[in-house]
């Protein structure tokens, strides 16, 4: 992590690799898997146009040709079924959607077919398919380009859901997703695309179902999902100014969910704040807190808070949009009250809060 005072923490050099952007890590992971396995193909509206899904499919068409990298009619419903059928026949499709909101057009195929095929056909078929989609934020993304709808997929047995928040996990999770024999909903965030982390050149797998502890602290546990993992790191920097040390955990994989790592931390700190990149109602934050709460905790009770999108549609105007999202200052303020409930007035220095946006997670991984 690059901290506010500019000091880089130690990284374990052998695995660190070169600095790579999240967007390039995605493209590199897919290219390496396409190289390794001729069954892998990439399809979806605009994967082969000049913008290449904000660069995340860059280079694939040139290397692997239009037989393995091709656009589609919009037809999200049929194109999802198409991938499921190809996967059942032994191929390994990667279906790309430039916004997660568009997955609502794929729900029948994802929920009724992809998730259930292995089970309802008695284990005789598999659906090794990756469904990539990107959550948008800022510059008027608004109602239908901003939604983090992953909890809908977490609800359904048979789907894996992964939402990496840094370039290292983006590459490792993408390779794991392509090699997985199940449908994987791969959730990206537009604002993470330019963020950099050390990423090994060679292919590697980030195992699903293992949360990543991004920062250590004994006062408070903060869990941040997708882009909110980065916002929580920024909040932790601000809390450090007030002498509060936070554990920051990125679940990375939402289904299966590594609740043990979160419980372990929350048992130590006694305070758990879950910050979601989505609404709180019936969301991932509800699930995480429920699973922590229903575990018999021997030593101490845990106090909970959660944050997420305002319970509204996302507005486009920045005046309202900034109120819609949790931000580092607000996360820090909630964290502070959780640790020092008697002292509710603290909020971070606005100048420090502004600076906190320089924080990126860069390991160690």
């Amino acid at each position, binding site marked *: 992590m690059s901290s506010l005072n500019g000091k880089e923490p130690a990284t374990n050099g052998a695995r660190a690799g070169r600095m790579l952007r999240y967007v390039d890590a995605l493209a590199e992971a897919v290219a390496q898997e396409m190289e390794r396995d001729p069954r892998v193909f990439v399809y979806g509206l605009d994967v082969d146009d000049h913008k290449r899904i904000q660069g995340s499919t860059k280079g694939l068409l040139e290397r692997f040709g239009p037989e393995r990298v091709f656009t589609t009619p919009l037809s999200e*419903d049929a194109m999802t079924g198409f991938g499921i059928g190809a996967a059942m*026949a032994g191929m390994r*499709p990667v279906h790309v959607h430039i916004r997660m909101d568009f997955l609502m057009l794929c729900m029948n195929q994802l929920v009724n077919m992809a998730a259930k095929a292995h089970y309802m056909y008695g284990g005789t078929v598999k659906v090794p398919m990756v469904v990539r989609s990107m959550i948008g934020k800022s510059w008027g993304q608004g109602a239908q380009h901003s939604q983090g709808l992953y909890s809908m997929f977490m609800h359904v047995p*048979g789907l894996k859901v992964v939402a990496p928040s840094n370039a290292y996990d983006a590459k490792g999770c993408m390779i794991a997703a392509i090699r997985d024999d199940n449908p994987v909903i791969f959730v990206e965030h537009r604002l993470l695309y330019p963020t950099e982390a050390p990423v090994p050149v060679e292919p590697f797998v980030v195992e699903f179902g293992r949360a990543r502890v991004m920062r250590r602290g004994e006062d408070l546990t903060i869990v941040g999902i997708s882009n909110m993992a980065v916002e929580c790191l920024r909040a932790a920097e601000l809390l450090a100014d007030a002498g509060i040390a936070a554990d920051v955990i990125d679940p990375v994989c939402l289904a299966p969910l590594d609740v043990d790592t979160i419980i372990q931390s929350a048992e130590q700190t006694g305070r758990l704040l879950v910050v979601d990149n989505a609404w709180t109602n019936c969301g991932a934050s509800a699930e995480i807190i429920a699973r922590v709460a229903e575990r018999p905790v021997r030593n101490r009770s845990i106090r909970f808070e959660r944050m997420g999108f305002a319970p509204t549609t996302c507005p486009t105007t920045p005046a309202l949009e900034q109120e819609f999202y949790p931000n580092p200052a607000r996360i820090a303020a909630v964290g502070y009250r959780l640790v020092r409930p008697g002292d509710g007035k603290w909020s971070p220095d606005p100048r420090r809060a502004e600076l906190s946006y320089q924080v990126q997670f860069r390991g160690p991984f």
Partner: protein
Amino acid sequence: MPDGASRADGETLERLYGKLYLTRRFEEVVADIYPTDKIKSPVHLSIGQEPIAVGVCDALRADDVVSGTYRGHAAYLAKGGDAKAMMAELFGKDGGCARGKGGSMHLVDIAHGVLGSSAVVGSTVPIAMGYAFALKREGRGRVVAAFFGDGATEEGVLWESLNFAALHKLPILFVCENNGYAIHEPIEKRWAARDLIAKVTAFGLPASRMDGSDVVAIRAAAASAVGPMRTGAHGPSFIECLTYRWREHVGPNADFDAGYRSRAELEPWAAADAVTRVGAMLGPAVRHTIESEIERQVRDAVSFAEQSSMPALSELKTHVFA
């Protein structure tokens, strides 16, 4: 309206009759057993519609693939799906084709080229198309036949699939079993434009309307459609087979007293019944041999289902993930 059977050689007729008789008798036995509650699954019987699946599947190779619907018993059996595993599946037994986890609406037999069927109308059509894409890439000349009903033509996904299959020249035969009803609602209450062939051809693939009772003509149409697909010379084709569901939408009974259709509607279809007509083209000895063999197969399927055990409780949590 149905007008009967086209001509075919004796060997073909015997083969077709065997499959027609199997699909008919299997379901009649299912209907007989159903009131005993031994069958643990809703059943949507194909009775009356069998010639479509039988005709199309007779034009397919063993390594070709079909996809079906929740009214998919005939397609499963016609393609060569395991009858014992199917009956056991209906009984909810461990020996079922989906180990008792799918039931009648989710029949599957990958070894015999039967993709799993679905209870959501139209949902297997794009999956069949994706399978056809994989088969085209495989390059061994295999094809897919996708069965669906007239109701599926009201789902957007069908038209999305037709467009993509035509665009990519995928080796898939779309087979619409038009029985005139979606559950209990007639086409008159559902379609603004009645000419399905005109709609389909506008999407860029050849389509023709057929008498769904004429098993020989359906077989011939399917054969001439899939032949050029195997070489990659031709893309997808579409046939609309006019047919009639003799029993209720779901369950073992007739429902002509329910008020939404009359028994008179059934009469021309019953008169053109392919099982009866093709059977009548065979000599009595040949016919007897075929029928006894099928009766034995159906009996064996029932006893296999009876003897198969219920799944172990641990099966509940297996196969959630591969």
